């Protein structure tokens, strides 16, 4: 279905500051056949990773130990990298426009929702949307 690269997977930036969730999400994304850039537990770390490479898509946790991932979202938007915010907040509750306008993946994220989100990123990355 998804128009992915030859090796069948996307490179997905994962921003998540909770260690357990970062591990779990990384494994689940990898099980879907994608590779993970990160995980990054802070926006600085995410920016460092983005200095070195541009991913095909991104999954962004909103609150990063008191910081927010809005600056990462803005940078990815400028580069045209499709993103999902992954959060326990409802979409309307996000205060920053850079995050509010992104598609929202509600925590806890089910396998099916994650798969659909990755498909969506793949389509965007392939220029279908």
């Amino acid at each position, binding site marked *: 279905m998804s128009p992915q690269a030859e090796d069948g997977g996307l490179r997905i930036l994962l921003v*998540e*500051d*909770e*260690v*357990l*969730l*970062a*591990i*779990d999400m990384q*494994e*689940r994304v990898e099980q879907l056949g994608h590779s993970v850039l*990160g*995980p*990054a*537990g*802070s926006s*600085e*770390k995410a920016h*460092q990773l983005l200095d070195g490479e541009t991913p095909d898509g991104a999954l962004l946790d909103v*609150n990063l*130990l*008191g*910081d927010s991932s809005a600056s990462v979202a803005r940078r990815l938007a400028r580069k045209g990298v499709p993103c999902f915010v992954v959060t*326990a*907040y*409802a979409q309307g*509750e996000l205060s920053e426009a850079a995050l509010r306008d992104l598609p929202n993946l*509600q*925590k*806890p*994220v089910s396998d099916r929702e994650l798969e659909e989100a990755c498909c969506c990123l793949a389509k965007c990355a392939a220029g279908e949307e």
Partner: protein
Amino acid sequence: METSEQIPRRFPLVARGADETETFVAVIRRLSRAQSVKEIMAVAAPAARQLLAADGITFVLRDGNRCHYADEDAISPLWKGKRFPMQECISGWCMMHRRATAIPDIYQDRRIPEDAYRPTFVRSLAMAPVNKDAPVGAMGAYWAERRQVASNELDLLQAMADAASLAISNAELRSKDGAADHLRRDNAHRIKNIFTMALALVNQTSGGNVEEYKKALTVRLSALERAHAVMFEAETGTVNLPNMLNQLLAPYTSGDQLCLQCETDQVLLSAQEATDLALILNELASNAIKYGALSIPEGQVTVSCRAEARGLRLSWRERGGPKVEPPSRAGLGTKLIGAIAIHDLGGEADIRYAPSGLECDVMLPLGKG
């Protein structure tokens, strides 16, 4: 200009017609939307001054047994910011008697403390309680000349005080609603986060048979619960580190098997940082019970903790246990400790299977959230 001897206008409202009605309507609209008592006073005082052609308006709030002159709009300063005993001022009289009153000449009325008025322009006044049933304040109108206040003027002042009273209740109700709504959303957010963590633990736990899986999962969920219990007790987010470590490790250690060395007593932890600490300690301790120093009575674990500029340095040293060997595949503890690198704190995060026993050093994020 009117002199003090002139007979004041009896019906200023009628005389000035539509302007006053419009003003009154506009004021009621603004009061109905007001968010705070401050805003209500700021709207009501100038409006009352205009409608009553007064030289000054005060807005008084009851503060226990005192009258707090909280706001005013006047040709020259009155008593803004001052507090007087209820028994000694006319606003107190209005609140205690729950009715409006007018005083044509303040120097002829025993209820007036002359000393307080002498420095002011005031010669006559009208005063009405805010919320007649259970007064929370009063509104006063003042004139520089002696003046018979017409009954419809007193009614108008009372109407303004009633409107302000309604607006105050409304604003209070709204802020309570807002707080309750905020609390509800905050709770929903927390609960979702807890379920997210619990589901990740379910996913990250593996075990040979159902019984083993159940046991492993229960241990991990209990660690999550202990982290929440610790943070719930530490309402402000400041936790006593030795107490916290004791609570987290209590299920695993008996008597003198655990040696705690905390160089830092009080640390500021977010719920998430506490959870990370609890999960990592839990994995270290449950592995020590199964394979390490805590698997035999003679074994010992020394846990030291120190807050550093970038985070909380945790070191775990096992001694006196059986010889340890690296596991064939990474368990959750190893994964968690390895993944601490996502925070980029620059501290070591490593596990060594030393001949003397397992050693682990990890730098945890601390005190930003």
